[in-house]
């Protein structure tokens, strides 16, 4: 990625670090976890209930890893394939993202909820890319759901009524000022992309690529009790029954 973070030709996500290295880093954690779960599953004294639970965990962690690979390949083909931008009901997409991640959240005894959403006009977007952005944000927020275990998907219309903001609000431990500065600089393209400490930032980088291809943008807000990662999309002026 170049300094502005908008080149699809440059393959490195973090300066001087090849994309393949970042992707490998991102896949390390789920693969290492699947391996450990496999050893647990293979224990001779594991009960039937434990085996069922471990199998479910292996499936969900594998799905998470597969989402990473699917996003990487999707991002790679963005410049070569045509994709449709159309009026999209953003709340429907938020619900889809919520449904997709529900099993993973339940596995971690967490809840991903749809927050208060006013009636919104349709946005100009690609449904698949928008869903992937929200899933990326919510996937990352899983570890930041705070004591209540809740992460919320929120939507709002800008005052000027021309932009819809879809946000994933978490309530986890606050980032330090330094971490936050790095993240904000990343989002503004002045620095290599970094997310939170345990992340390579690949999810945010890919979300940024998806957003740019829809003429949308991503951003983040730091709260006293967590953070919101959001995507802003232009409102469709086309009359629709969505």
């Amino acid at each position, binding site marked *: 990625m170049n300094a502005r973070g908008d080149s699809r030709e440059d393959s490195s996500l973090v300066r001087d670090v090849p994309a393949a290295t970042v992707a490998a880093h991102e896949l390390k954690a789920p693969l290492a976890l699947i391996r450990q*779960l496999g050893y647990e599953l293979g224990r001779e004294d594991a009960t039937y209930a434990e085996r069922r639970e471990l199998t479910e965990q292996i499936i969900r962690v594998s799905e998470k890893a597969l989402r990473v690979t699917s996003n990487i390949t999707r991002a790679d083909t963005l410049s070569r394939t045509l994709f449709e931008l159309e009026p999209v009901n953003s709340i429907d997409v938020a619900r889809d993202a919520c449904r997709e991640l529900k099993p993973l959240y339940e596995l971690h005894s967490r809840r991903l909820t749809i927050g208060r959403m006013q009636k919104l006009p349709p946005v100009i977007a690609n449904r698949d890319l928008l869903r992937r952005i929200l899933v990326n944000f919510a996937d990352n927020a899983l570890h930041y759901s705070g004591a209540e275990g809740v992460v919320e998907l929120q939507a709002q219309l800008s005052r000027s009524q021309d932009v819809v903001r879809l946000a994933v609000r978490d309530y986890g431990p606050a980032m330090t000022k330094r971490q936050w500065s790095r993240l904000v600089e990343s989002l503004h393209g002045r620095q290599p992309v970094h997310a939170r400490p345990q992340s390579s930032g690949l999810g945010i980088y890919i979300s940024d690529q998806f957003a740019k291809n829809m003429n949308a943008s991503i951003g983040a807000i730091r709260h006293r009790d967590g953070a919101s990662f959001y995507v802003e999309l232009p409102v469709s002026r086309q009359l629709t029954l969505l």
Partner: protein
Amino acid sequence: MNQGRVVVVEDDELLAGIFLRVLRRNGYEAYHALHAASAIDVIDDAQPAVILLDVLLAGTTALTLLHELRSHADLAEIPIVLATNLADQISLDDVQSYGVKRILDKTTMYPDDIITAVRSAML
């Protein structure tokens, strides 16, 4: 027989669950802290013989926690075992001054390696 107390600081609950089960099966009293932010309280309450610490934690890094532990006189001497996916990038020599006795590579370790590492750290 109680082998001693171990606090596991790990932000992935599934992995933490495995570590806790392995430790408990082997007679250790195991406690879990999900974030570095809550770790000091858990460690303070449990007064463990060993801390098993992930490096890349949600919210803050293990290094910050290690600094903080060193600043508490009663916690500074607790031996640390790092369990990390970044083991190939961390040298024991660089972290020994923080009380780190062993580094476990999560990508290659076997479940029983936790016990070997904890035992060795307690020596």
